[in-house]
């Protein structure tokens, strides 16, 4: 606590020289952005082991993979038009910086639609434009939803940015005093602090003390701050308390998925190799030619439509392209339609059917017995009920699969482990496994389908299911 207060004095001393400090941070930021851009636009050459030049297909693979993992690259082309969210956001923030006013805005949209990516683009551009007038504080709702945690993190980031010493044992009050003082000082120095609150809906849980104190501090004359909330819940402003909502300007930017043409253009932009880089020209040209052929194929259009019909954000699309690109066969050296198809099929999994296919026959017997118990409208059953059913099946039709109770119990436990069945409540820890009531986690249609596709399923099981 003492450290923070003394650093407060330090700030007052340094207020006159705040421009020189922020110049220094600007140099750091500039060089950081430069290095990051450098490392991501160039394909990396592995040093050490391989002495000969990398094959062009490997270079291409590296380049495509690094492009797909870089959100800046992906969202930059979408942000060129004047009515995109990028421009709107940039306008709002830059006006509040230049006109020295406070602002608050919410970025809403489903997960993977690029909210944080566009925000980072805007911030990096603004940092280049107004180097000494902006400082950014980033909080995440998953980590910092607790008020103590959040204030500590804000204090820590402020200290890091202004090269002050941060004390880990500072109390909540000290931190909050420090933050308010910093806000005042930065406002007097005409420096805008931008608070980025990721997963905003977590901050809106509980008492919303942090939000209230931030927004309240913004109401004072001296402060210059912008609060940007990012959330996947489209109704997050309904979660705010009345007093918080009244201090919040109801600006919202919706991030929706792009249209089909935009998506196609984006895919081409991402996957086409640049013709003037270190990749040999003829290879790149042939690669791009083949890519165009794949894209214009009808099957491919169908494939993409199937994928996009249930995974419609850019984040999901990027992940799908990443999978397809990584399946590229280095011997073939080019992307093919098969890669995309494999990527699609690995995303279209049916986990319960896979589980059934992995079961042994005894476990299938247990499942079918439970299904029959359910059909007989016995709502709660445990292992012993299942065993009686199992024995009755064996008595009525002499199956070869009659095993003792301990073996069946282990099969039962395997089913529990695979989450095909589960206990009805988690409180029965003072009962042994055989007596706790269980329920099926698989529907009868899935069970039926699984049995039909099971290799060498005993006919009696199918008969029992059909009845």
């Amino acid at each position, binding site marked *: 606590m003492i450290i923070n207060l003394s650093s407060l004095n330090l700030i007052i001393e340094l207020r006159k020289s705040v421009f020189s400090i922020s110049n220094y941070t600007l140099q750091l930021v500039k060089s950081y952005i430069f290095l990051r851009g450098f490392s991501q636009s160039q394909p990396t050459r592995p040093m050490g082991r391989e002495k000969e030049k990398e094959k062009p297909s490997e270079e291409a693979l*590296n380049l495509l993979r690094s492009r797909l993992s870089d959100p800046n690259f992906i969202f930059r082309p979408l942000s060129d038009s004047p009515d995109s969210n990028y421009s709107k956001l940039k306008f709002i923030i830059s006006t509040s910086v230049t006109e020295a006013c406070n602002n608050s805005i919410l970025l809403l949209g489903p997960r993977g639609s690029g909210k944080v990516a566009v925000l980072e683009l805007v911030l990096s551009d603004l940092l280049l434009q107004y180097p000494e007038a902006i400082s950014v504080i980033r909080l995440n709702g998953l980590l910092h939803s607790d008020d103590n945690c959040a204030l500590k993190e804000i204090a820590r980031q402020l200290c890091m940015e202004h090269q002050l010493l941060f004390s880990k044992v500072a109390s909540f009050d000290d931190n909050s005093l420090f933050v308010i003082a910093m806000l005042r000082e930065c406002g007097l120095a005409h420096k805008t602090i931008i608070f980025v609150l990721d997963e905003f809906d977590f901050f809106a849980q509980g008492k919303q003390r942090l939000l209230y104190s931030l927004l309240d501090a913004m109401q004072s004359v001296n402060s210059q701050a912008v609060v940007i909330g990012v959330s996947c819940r489209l109704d997050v402003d309904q979660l705010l308390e009345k007093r918080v909502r009244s201090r919040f300007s109801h600006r919202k930017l919706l991030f929706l998925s792009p249209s089909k043409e935009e998506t196609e253009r984006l895919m081409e932009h991402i996957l086409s190799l640049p013709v003037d880089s270190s990749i040999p020209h003829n290879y790149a040209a042939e690669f791009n030619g083949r890519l165009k052929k794949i894209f214009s194929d009808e099957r491919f259009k169908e494939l993409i439509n199937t994928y996009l019909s249930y995974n419609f954000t850019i984040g999901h699309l990027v992940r799908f392209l990443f999978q397809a690109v990584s399946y590229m066969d280095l011997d073939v050296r080019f992307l093919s339609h098969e890669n995309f198809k494999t990527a699609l099929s690995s995303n279209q999994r049916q986990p319960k059917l896979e589980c059934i296919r992995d079961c042994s026959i005894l476990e299938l017997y247990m499942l079918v017995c439970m299904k029959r118990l359910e059909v007989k409208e016995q709502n709660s059953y445990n292992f012993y009920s299942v065993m009686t059913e199992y024995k009755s099946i064996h008595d009525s039709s002499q199956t070869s699969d009659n095993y003792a109770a301990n073996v069946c119990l282990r099969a039962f436990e395997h089913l529990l482990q695979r989450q095909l069945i589960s206990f009805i409540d988690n409180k029965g820890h003072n009962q042994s496994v055989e007596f706790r009531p269980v329920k099926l986690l698989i529907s009868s249609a899935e069970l039926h389908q699984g049995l039909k596709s099971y290799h060498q399923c005993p006919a009696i099981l199918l008969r029992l299911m059909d009845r």
Partner: protein
Amino acid sequence: MDMEGSPQVTRRTTRSCAVSSNDVESTKPSESYKPTLNDLAFGKQPFGLEDLLSRFPCRRTQILEFLRLLGPLNSPLFPVLVYGGPSTGKTSVTLQVFRHLNRPFIYSSCVTCYSPRILFESMLNQLLFHRKDSKHSYSSVKRCERPSDFVNYLREALENVISSLKGNSGKSNSKMSGRPDGTMVYLVFDNLECVRYWDKSSTILPFLFNLYDILKMPEVGLIFISNISPDMYYLNIGYVEPIPLYFLNYTEDDLRHIFMVNQTNRKLYASFLDVVLRPFCRVTRRVDELAAALSSLFKKYCEPLSDKEVAPNEEMKRKLFSQIRPHISSALNETFQVRSQPLLGAEANKTKKTNSSKMSGILEDFDKIDFHMSTSAKYLLISAFLASRNPATLDASLFDSTGVSDSRKRKRKASEKSMDQKEMAEQELHMKGPGTFPLERLLAIFQCITSLAEDSLDEEESRELTTEGSSRGLMSDVLLQLSSLCNANFIIKGGSCPLEGSTRYRTAVSEDLALKVARSLKFPLSKYLYRR
């Protein structure tokens, strides 16, 4: 050693401490090993792709897919979720793939790291090259409980590691063993399904899945290994799903292939598998369980053979098959049993009974319990079983002071309605499970039974028991035995009775085990069991 010559110590010291303090030439504590950057690699000699594929006979497609997803050196990676049933090779394939690629990774399992704090600290220890040793009283390098602190420390540590890796790769390209390749660090989280049962699972699980987005470091790759399929992880808060990689369970042919690896006499083992594999696969298809069950059966299969190296011809195969056949069904019923007696003892027993048929030998094993218990513990177990099974109102009539059990039964013709009622009652009994009883009832039944046992023994033996101590002396033993039975899960401590507030107990043994225990004591358990 020097105990007699040691000076009078005023405070209590342990014997070893006293000895070592007198020892002049005490050895210096060995320098504890300081981990370095090279420890992030697997540590052993990396091998080529064909080696890797041959170590995992039926996992070719999965290994190739995994290698493709990991990509070439220094290529960024989206999070990957490796999932599949237990004992399908997920962890071992992951680790061996990293050995093959010789890339730096850190590994933490959510079974050994059973709380968020331990998980975070274990990962930080590995990244900051800190090994817990006695000098620092086995503490971690940083105390880290909350995800926010963890992210800050992790970022710092990862940046340090990555910069030193970049420095390494910039140096000479010596193919020195132990130096990891590349500038990416991979974090492997094993047994992810255990996180669901933690107290803080609602915050930790979304945190782990969103870790990639939070860190925003392209040089870090995340790999999750899980026993359950990804649809069981659906949370309230969404996340962009990791790329799934499915390890399916082995088919019968795969299992045959796997078991044939490293066998000395392949033909003999192949003929053995022909006979045995199919029936055992109907029970379970897990490699670890099958391996345990088949190994003991194989020994039985090879018994009549004098020469274990011979390749069997058709006739020998038929003979061996007919010899092993009666054992298969009984072995199937003990598939999951873990033998606690050493196999040598059992074999020695078997050679003694040459004339008696093998079937009765197996039945005898069934009747015996294969763990040791003291007599009072056995009586306690039986009393607990009786207390759970019988309703409390019957105790007076069953455990009459004269020792005469109630054998009068009113013979009544069983009507259909009463049969149905009996069935319903039995079903209810099965559903509810064994009942609870307070401690006093257990001790009362215990005293009745042991007094009966004392009466029924010979004079000589009863004298022995009484000289051991009166029933009062037996009491403290009994309470100790009770707590050890609770710890061994033979008796479960249930909730407390709402009226009296004392804890109630419940038995957790099956009827078979109770009968076995009673038979070993020659106690007529069935006379005391209440049958509706």
